[in-house]
């Protein structure tokens, strides 16, 4: 799993690639919570287009990011939700809980 950060205008883009499982989800969680709570950007966008696998611990990390963003009134957005990641979020009944867009452009342009 690889994770990197980009700053675009007033938003943070978190790019994740590979597998998010028990080995890598702690790092994902750590990065997400740092970006949401410490950097306090009004919008944190999680790019999952290159994620090949995500397990329940990965989903839990996304949920924690969402809850942290709600606590401080910021937005936590998922983009590029491809087959494996979308399937797992659907199984978790969480697709409707997250703010999801197909592309980064849409996510950055979306108004509240």
């Amino acid at each position, binding site marked *: 799993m690889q994770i990197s950060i980009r700053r675009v205008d007033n938003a943070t883009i978190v790019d994740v690639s590979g*597998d998010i*499982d*028990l*080995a890598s989800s702690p790092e994902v969680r750590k990065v997400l919570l740092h970006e949401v709570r410490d950097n306090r950007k009004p919008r944190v966008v999680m790019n999952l287009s290159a994620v090949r*696998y995500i*397990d*329940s*611990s990965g*989903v*839990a*990390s996304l*949920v*924690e990011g*969402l*809850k942290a963003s709600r606590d401080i009134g910021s937005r936590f957005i998922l983009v590029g939700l491809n087959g*494996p990641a979308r*399937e*797992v979020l659907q*199984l*978790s*009944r*969480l697709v409707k*809980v997250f703010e999801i867009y197909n592309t980064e452009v849409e996510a950055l342009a979306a108004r509240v």
Partner: protein
Amino acid sequence: MRDHDTKIGVLAGVLARSVGLNRDLLLKIELLSDPKWLYVVRGAVERLAETVGFAAAECRSVVRAVDEALTNVMRHCYCGRLDQPIELSFRWLGGHSKAGQKKGLEILLCDRGPAVDKSKLHPKTSGELQPGGLGLQFIREAMDSVGYKRVGHTNLLRLVKYLPSEKP
């Protein structure tokens, strides 16, 4: 480790014979409880499920179930220790073509952790915005049968997934 391996293998065999189903061993994996090996196991399980005859979506669900079961052992049975033994056995069911006998895949997962509290083996209510607790839900939704047994000092988790029924 060797002594552990032998005992787990014997106990898994005892459980397998006691259930009384036809079986053929397809694959056995012994690993340590380090999460870095999950990736390797997923790859093997995906290829195995495909070879056995499951469709793509079913292969993904088998991979998910095994991965979540292993994760639960690593987190909850071994509490994050990286050096504890886990054994996986994959067996073919219905190999002798008995009439009406379903064909499928049996997966036995053995660990030497403390006994599992059975009251915690129920999946979380879906839709709750609570981190964690989804693993059991994924396992039960993926597999046709999920069973747990404690034999001596070994936890035995048995997962079964049947191939779709053949159309007449």
